[in-house]
């Protein structure tokens, strides 16, 4: 893979300022990202894992130019996207779409589903029959076409996330960034949404960037992962090799924290099933 990466972050630092405690002491800077470099290649499913506060969401925002790095730069298809005025980011806005954690808050409660899904096409002034495209997208995500006249609150959590996915697909993107796309959903619905994402990624030849704290989700979906801790990437590599042989102590701790059936418990389970 010597080609230009699709999305790239180079030495990205993002500092926030904590609110000032008093008139005399100014807010202290907090480093959410501390010199992060990462490359995402076309067609792969890339996972960003880490505990909450590790900077994984901030990194995803910077890769979408929804947040600006304090220093360092992000690139899309080799073009600089950090510090670029919004009006010159049309190519990025069309190609990269997002699915957020809580579909209740990520869908405008005052819009009907038909408008929600058509919004990206309208905002980007894409040609074509938007209504037909909405119907097609509803079908792609497994929702009944008649439901487009309803409002988001009239759907279940899983259905809402399907609407969010349909919206993300509407503009015909190349990349979908999922920021904890299943964390707010019932366990019973998670698998369906994850399968939907993988199926659609394959069907539309999408590059997936998945931000999650849930290691099993990332393992299931991603080809490559980056493990983040306290604003730094501590380890990057193929998912299977990292799971098989974690190098960094933080990764080892993270993996050992995943509840599994092993040892004594597994023995008992095996004995009782035979």
């Amino acid at each position, binding site marked *: 893979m010597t080609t230009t990466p699709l999305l790239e972050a180079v030495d990205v630092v993002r500092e926030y300022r904590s609110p000032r405690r008093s008139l005399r002491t100014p807010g202290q800077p907090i480093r959410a990202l501390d010199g992060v470099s990462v490359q995402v290649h076309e067609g792969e499913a890339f996972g960003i894992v880490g505990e909450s506060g590790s900077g994984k969401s901030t990194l995803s925002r910077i890769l*979408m130019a929804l947040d600006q790095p304090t220093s360092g730069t992000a690139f899309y298809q080799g073009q600089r996207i950090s510090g670029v005025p919004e009006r010159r980011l049309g190519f990025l806005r069309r190609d990269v779409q997002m699915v957020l954690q809580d579909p209740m808050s*990520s869908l405008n409660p*005052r819009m009907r589903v038909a408008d929600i899904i058509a919004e990206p096409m309208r*905002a980007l002034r894409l040609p074509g029959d938007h209504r037909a495209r909405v119907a097609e997208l509803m079908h792609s995500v497994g929702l*009944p076409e008649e439901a487009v006249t309803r*409002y988001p609150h009239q759907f279940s959590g899983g259905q809402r996330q399907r609407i969010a996915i349909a919206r993300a697909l509407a503009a015909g993107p190349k990349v979908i960034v999922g920021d904890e796309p299943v964390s707010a959903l019932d366990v019973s619905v*998670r698998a*369906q949404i994850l399968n939907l994402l993988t199926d659609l990624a394959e069907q539309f030849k999408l590059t997936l960037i998945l931000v999650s704290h849930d290691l099993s989700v990332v393992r299931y979906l991603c080809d490559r992962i980056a493990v983040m801790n306290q604003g730094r990437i501590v380890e990057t590599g193929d998912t299977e090799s990292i799971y098989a042989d974690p190098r960094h102590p933080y990764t080892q701790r993270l993996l050992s924290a995943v509840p599994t059936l092993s040892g004594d418990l597994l023995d008992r389970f095996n004995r009782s099933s035979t």
Partner: protein
Amino acid sequence: MTSVADAPPDATADVVAAGPVKPRRRWNLTLVIGAGLVGLVVLTALVSFLWTPYDPTRVDPSQTLLSPGGDHWLGTDHFGRDIVSQLLVGARTTLFVGVVAVAIAAAVGVPLGLLAATGHRWLSEPVMRALDIVFAFPAILLAIILAAGFGASTLTGMIAIGVANVPVFGRLTRAGAMQVLQSDFVLAARSYGRRGVVLMVRYVLPNIAALLIVQASVSFAHAVLAEAALSYLGYGTPPPTPTWGRMLQEAQNYFVVQPMLAVWPGLAIALSVLGFNLMGDGLRDALDPRLRGR
């Protein structure tokens, strides 16, 4: 593969439609009562153009301070003018002043509030401080200054009340907009390139509409009261055009002789204020898709 892969691939299990959508309940009792009272005021004002029992400005020295009943249903004032006729015509001023004052306040305050919410420090701070200055300025004082400069008139009163309410709308809009701008759906909208005026109109305004409607109804009620106060002080609509406020003012001199004189305009003001408040509450609920029933 893990067990996750065993789920059905097309996964329509949770997609069973939630049954037929119940017919939406756009009307609620609060709205009906509020709209009824407001409708009554509007109707009164409209009727006054076509018909009043007597000429509201006709002075009749032989018929002063009559009690309700007889030829004059609600009696007459100290000049012998018919109370019903004055109330009917007074409704025009009340409505007109209320509508125009709230329109001025919202038309200036909402855009300023949205501007202040965008977060550009060099824009936000001056706008907010300017609103604070107007806010600190009593409406009555503003009206007196305007009246001194341009003469007391209905227009002066409307502008004074409108300007005094601009900061109310400005601050409310800013607070509401800042909250909406933090939400996930705005983040998503930015990710497909929505920004600027369209973002404000399609995403922010509909989500603070409820706040603004309630504020408009409260401001309307305040405007009715403020107009009454201005007329009462002599800085609003000049005589002989009847207004509820001045009727109330004139009644106080004859309160001992004919207490009912103060009751009628007072009741008219109270009922219309109540009507606008109830209508605002009702509209807020009726316009929220989440409250229209699942």
